[in-house]
């Protein structure tokens, strides 16, 4: 099966925040909840861990 080449998209600050917000909404967690779990080295489940990975390098979508 032919597979298209992998792509790289460049996100603006606003797009990154929106994308992080979408990831959080889909997971049901807030940024602060995940940050707290990360601080305690204790994620609820793999979904939480994967979502933290998605948003940690962006920061809270709600922050200035």
């Amino acid at each position, binding site marked *: *099966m032919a*597979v*298209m*080449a*992998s*792509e*790289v*998209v*460049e*996100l*603006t*600050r606003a*797009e*990154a925040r*929106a*994308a*992080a917000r*979408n*990831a959080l909404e*889909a*997971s049901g967690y807030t940024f602060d909840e995940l940050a707290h779990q990360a601080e305690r*080295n*204790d994620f609820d*489940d*793999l*979904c939480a*861990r*994967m*979502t933290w*990975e*998605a*948003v940690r*390098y*962006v920061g809270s979508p709600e922050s200035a």
Partner: protein
Amino acid sequence: MEPHEVDEEARGFARRLSDLLNATVCTGLRLTAARLPTGYVRIGLGINRHDLRARPLPLQGRVGHGVPLYLTLTYTLSQDDQGEHLMVVSSVVGTCLDPDGRRELFHADYERGKANYPEAHLQVCASSDDWDAVMADRDGDPLKKLHLPAGGRRYRTTVEDVIEFLVFERLVCPHDGWAEALGRSRDDFAERQLRAAVRRHPEIARDVLRRLPAVE
């Protein structure tokens, strides 16, 4: 690195991973990458301009008629200290039974520079009476809360290791030629790790080369 150089390396990273997966335990998948304004690059299935989550990958060819199995896979890259290449700053490779990652079996986690537990570690969702007895003295947490050391930075558990585990333990039926594809990918990873180690410790590399017979 210039942005186009970052994109080129990220694209290559995603392509190599996609090729490995499609040659072993997945079919027709294409991993994508997103470059963040902070300089980090996220890589995984389904990552795009609108969502930074990496989706679990459905594994093909489950043995018998067992429950569906998914491979969770995500990497975050940034430039190395010399600003010459991308390096993995964190990754998660594991398995779960659902497309959301809420029914986990295990995962190998890597967080570069993480304090208070091994930066490369395994977490296994399992239990036994013996572990329960031990953990009763530690707040009664289940085994999955423990971070079992897994090789350290250079020799951490890789996606190749997890794929090999799934095949060897007869949890998936791989594509023909899977072992060769896995071997090539593993050799590539080992070479990249070796090159990174040489860049970080050139005096050791020079010393080793000095002691070797001259190569024509």
